[in-house]
């Protein structure tokens, strides 16, 4: 899952797999695989959908489904979260396992990484135990070729007893074999007879004892051998799910309970207790994978990953690891700020030209003033501001960030930053969820599912909002540029902007650490749990594809949200400016009401009102401020972004106002979508409320302190 219009916003909420058989003859195919093996790319290639892909484990934390039509069949493809195992240690593994067990897919495609096949087979073997119709898709064959890793697919297929095909998923043509094989498996032209994992004799007879007893029951789609093993395993949460699925309680059936107890006793007698059994089961699967790989994989180059290792040496080096991270962040901001200047100017010129033409049309038809005011000066103008000020930085930042994501750098960031997080008793993967927060906090909150420990997950969810999302950082950029850099366009000033922006982001990150630490010392007490983090191989990002797709996806998303939220907001502002109660209009009443408190914070009533109105979407904060100043004042219109500062200055802005607005933008309540997502992910109003209270209180406190200190010196 990434930051597309289907994964952010409200749709981020609907993220558990359900089999959507739109028609009864639809064939449902599940797409499983380890994290970060190009599963989403295969999914996109097959369905033509734009699920975002990224080179870091845990990208698909929620599942998606799409339609794939071949010559013979129509398939509903379900992309389930990437996992290493189906033993359900974390939320995502549970989602994946439950889908494979109870979702009744007609076939399962397990996508594997050709450069790391042995470990991927672990999941293949576990899947084979659950499902009959399994197809193994060895992806990233181009990477394997580059590293001179040879894979004997026929031998692998023979050993596994299921079809094995190879793909280079970003080349669509290579997926043809996959769909052909799928057709053949579904039509039973290819008969799948998966390998049976052989456990030691003692375990086998314990399994057989239960299995014989289960024969007398309708187990629906569940495999009796697998279920017997799980009953022995005593996996309570799984047994509960199984009971739900079957509609009866397995262990309440006397003969099953008797058989399970018999088998457990038998194992105990042979010195195999529950823990030892689990160990043996996992070890045998690992050893089986090792055996299968013998003869299947040949490494022609001994140091096949030396390029990756060299990159790692530089990017995670003791001395320059951190400076490189900072530099990377600054370069991205610099490119964003420099690149956004020109399109911003062009866009606003163009959009204001249209506003004039719209006015002409209204004049031509002798439309009443209030209609022109409400639609053109209200709705249209606020839309214009949203598009021209907010869109260009987003359209540049987003693809840049995606390129970084695709390259595999982000897990290294998590690796570098793990120790500070550990000092806060948190999980190093929190930095991955923070990175996701740059795109969209709601997506970042869902992304927290990659963190196994519930306590550490809550820490990450509650602090995600301290990373300014895509909707907020153009606000910060605009104000920074206006007040601290000057309007001159040049390398020097854009460099200064990006340094300042980096400092603001660093403040957000420091706050994240501080709040995480305080939380883990107070209401979320606990010791850091153990953790494993994969550092995947670096990959060359698909530059062209990424740029086109993320601009396109993002642009549509932003425009959609802008239209949905900014347009009514523009109308409200215009109405408030034109409805008079007593001696002044509503707008003045509201902003004067907020003004005394806002003044203590070094803001003004209008800014505070804009933040409140920006609750559904932070993108509209600046546009609302401008609109309100315009509606209040005598100036009829401003034609370009550069004239904006003038308006702000006329309304009493100083550098102090600018600093406080930036601080408050960084630290205030999360947007409505994020709050709903937090409520959904934590299952409690309490945590959602807390996630709004913490940043708001901090933001207000910071602003008040800064203002108080500044007043002493001025």
């Amino acid at each position, binding site marked *: 899952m990434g930051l597309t219009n289907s994964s952010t916003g409200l749709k981020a909420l609907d993220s558990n797999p359900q089999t959507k058989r739109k028609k009864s003859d639809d064939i449902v195919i599940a797409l499983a695989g380890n994290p970060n093996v190009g599963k989403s790319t295969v999914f996109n290639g097959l369905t033509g959908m734009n699920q975002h892909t990224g080179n870091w484990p845990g990208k698909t934390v929620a599942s998606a489904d799409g339609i794939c039509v071949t010559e013979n069949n129509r398939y509903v493809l379900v992309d389930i979260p990437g996992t290493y195992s189906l033993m359900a240690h974390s939320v995502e593994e549970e989602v994946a396992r439950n889908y494979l067990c109870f979702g009744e897919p007609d076939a399962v495609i397990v996508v594997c990484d050709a450069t790391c096949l042995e*470990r991927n087979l672990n999941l293949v073997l576990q899947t084979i135990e659950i499902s009959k119709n399994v197809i193994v898709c060895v992806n990233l064959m181009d990477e394997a070729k580059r590293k001179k890793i040879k894979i004997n697919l026929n031998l692998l297929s023979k050993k596994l007893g299921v079809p094995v095909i190879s793909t280079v998923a970003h080349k669509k043509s290579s997926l043809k074999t996959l769909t052909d094989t799928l057709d053949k498996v579904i039509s039973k032209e290819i008969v799948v007879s998966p390998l049976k994992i052989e456990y030691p004799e003692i375990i086998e007879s314990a399994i057989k004892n239960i299995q014989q007893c289960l024969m007398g029951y309708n187990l629906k789609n569940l495999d009796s051998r697998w279920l017997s093993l799980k009953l022995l395993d005593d996996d309570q949460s799984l047994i509960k799910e199984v009971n739900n699925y079957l509609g009866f309680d397995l262990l309440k059936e006397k003969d099953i309970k008797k058989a399970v107890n018999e088998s457990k006793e038998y194992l105990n007698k042979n010195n195999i207790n529950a823990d030892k059994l689990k160990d043996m089961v996992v070890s045998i699967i*690992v050893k089986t994978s090792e055996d299968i790989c013998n003869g299947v994989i040949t490494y022609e180059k001994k140091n096949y990953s030396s390029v990756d290792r060299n990159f790692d040496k530089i990017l*995670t080096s003791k001395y320059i690891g951190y400076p490189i991270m900072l530099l990377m962040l600054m370069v991205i901001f610099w490119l964003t700020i420099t690149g956004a200047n020109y399109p911003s100017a062009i866009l606003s010129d163009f959009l204001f030209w249209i506003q004039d033409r719209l006015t002409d049309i209204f004049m031509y038809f002798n439309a009443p003033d209030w209609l022109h005011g409400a639609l053109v000066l209200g709705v249209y103008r606020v839309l214009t501001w949203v598009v021209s000020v907010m869109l260009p930085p987003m359209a540049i930042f987003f693809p840049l960030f995606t390129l970084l994501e695709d390259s595999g750098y982000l897990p290294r960031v998590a690796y570098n930053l*793990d*120790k500070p997080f550990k000092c806060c008793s948190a999980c190093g993967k929190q930095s991955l969820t923070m990175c996701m927060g740059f795109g969209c906090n709601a997506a970042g909150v869902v992304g927290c599912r990659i963190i196994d420990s519930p306590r550490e997950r809550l820490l990450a969810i509650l602090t995600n909002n301290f990373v300014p999302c895509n909707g907020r950082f153009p606000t910060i950029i605009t104000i920074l540029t206006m007040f601290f850099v000057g309007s001159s366009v040049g390398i020097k000033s854009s460099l200064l902007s990006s340094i300042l922006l980096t400092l603001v982001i660093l403040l957000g990150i420091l706050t994240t650490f501080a709040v995480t630490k305080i939380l883990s010392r107070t209401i979320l007490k606990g010791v850091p749990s153990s*953790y494993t983090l994969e550092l995947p191989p670096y990959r060359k990002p698909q530059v062209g594809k990424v740029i086109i797709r993320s601009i396109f996806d993002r642009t549509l998303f932003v425009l959609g949200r802008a239209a949905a939220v900014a347009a009514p907001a523009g109308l409200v502002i215009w109405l408030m400016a034109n409805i008079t109660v007593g001696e002044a209009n509503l707008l003045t009443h509201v902003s004067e009401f907020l003004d005394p408190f806002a003044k203590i914070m070094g803001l003004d009533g209008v800014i505070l009102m804009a933040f409140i109105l920006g609750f559904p979407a932070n993108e509209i904060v600046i546009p609302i401020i401008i609109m309100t100043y315009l509606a209040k004042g005598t100036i009829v219109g401003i034609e370009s972004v550069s004239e904006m500062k003038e308006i702000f200055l006329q309304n009493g802005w100083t550098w102090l106002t600018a600093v406080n607005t930036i601080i408050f933008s960084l630290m205030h309540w999360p947007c409505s979508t994020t709050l709903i997502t937090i409520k959904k992910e934590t299952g409690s109003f309490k945590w959602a409320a807390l996630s709004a209270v913490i940043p708001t209180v901090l933001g207000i406190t910071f602003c008040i302190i800064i203002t108080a200190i500044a007043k002493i010196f001025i």
Partner: protein
Amino acid sequence: MSEKTCLGDIMPGQTAVISALNTTGSMRRRLLDIGLIEGTRVECLGKSPLGDPSAYLIRGAVIALRKDDCKNILISKFN
């Protein structure tokens, strides 16, 4: 030379063979899942800038593990 007993003791560039996992519960499952069973060869690739965690090559994949967790991963030999 001091004796090396757990995975945390080996330095970048050194290789060890796993002898036992001295941990229980979910961490034990996770370590087994990534292929750390008895007899697995593991190479230490490097340390993160602040010295912890370290990166290990385990069955073809690079996995970062914290020092505290490595204490519970016992090794039999190294070079």
